[in-house]
């Protein structure tokens, strides 16, 4: 019988690292890490289009017994002020938590807090 990993791997990914990647590189990187069983905390969240693409890519990658999808939760976007809007500032998504759905479960979320639960015994390989 294979021994399950008891440790959970959390990776905090900096804004700088994310900004260096194109959208498609970012999504590839996230899915690759999450499929390994890692939980990622992105300092700078995904845009709505990237979130939709991540869901689409996740659906393509689902494997019956090894990968059932992702759990993803981010705090709401920064609201630009009137003057920021005037000068073309767009909304910026804030910190986001992404992990494998068999490992990470959201308990509660509101504008200011995300409560999650980690299901033990299913850590990163």
């Amino acid at each position, binding site marked *: 019988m294979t021994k399950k990993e008891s440790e959970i791997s959390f990776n905090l990914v900096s804004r700088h690292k994310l900004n260096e990647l194109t959208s498609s590189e970012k999504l590839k990187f996230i899915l690759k890490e999450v499929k390994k069983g890692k939980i990622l905390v992105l300092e700078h969240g995904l845009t709505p289009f990237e*979130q939709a693409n991540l*869901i*689409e890519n*996740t*659906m393509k990658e689902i494997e019956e017994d090894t990968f059932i*999808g992702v759990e993803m939760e981010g705090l709401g976007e920064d609201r630009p002020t009137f003057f920021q809007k005037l000068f073309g500032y767009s909304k910026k998504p804030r910190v986001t938590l992404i992990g494998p*759905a068999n490992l990470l479960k959201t308990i509660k979320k509101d*504008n200011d807090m995300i409560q999650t639960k980690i299901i033990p015994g299913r850590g990163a390989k």
Partner: protein
Amino acid sequence: MGLFGKVSLASILQRIFGKKHAKIGIYGPPNVGKTTLANRILRDWTGDIMGSVSEVPHETRRAKWKKNVKVENGGSSLFMDIVDTPGVATKVDYKEFMNTWGLTKDEAKRRAKEATEGVIESIKWLEDIDGVLLVMDSTQDPFTQVNVTILGNLEARNLPVLIAANKIDMEESSPATLKSAFPQHPVIPISALTGYNSDNLYTTMVSHFSKKRKKKRR
């Protein structure tokens, strides 16, 4: 009889400023009552239905649509192509269909496979619609990633969205929570099952979706 005879001011304004036709997607997570609502709309305006409903999630796994559904609001009206989309989810586990809903392993695996394809199809439809009726379960936490992702995409595209706070026939429902969670969009409490407040929904659909907007492309 007034200056304009039987023609109402609303219909005159709509002719000048509004749209007469819009493709409206019914979106939301699985099991919030999208197809029940689509059936309600079609039954009320065409006498037809859209599709089967079930307690088992992901019952709708291919998008279905009905063209030219005329919805009226006093003197004004709007022709809508109603698209009932499969539930959007970030995970699909065939074991849940077996353990919770008693499907056989083969049925569960097939349903899960089709459900993943359905989610992809729903996301692709976002490119091709003029507005969204976003169905939320008013007994549940509204800040789900699916709701946030769909709303974010619609806002980025400048598409009109109307939130249907469904299942208000249930005791634990709280449409007020949805209203305070998404104050930037109209929220209509409704029971798609009983039809409660559907007249209010239709009135808002006609006025909200007939407004002309400049659609942003990606």
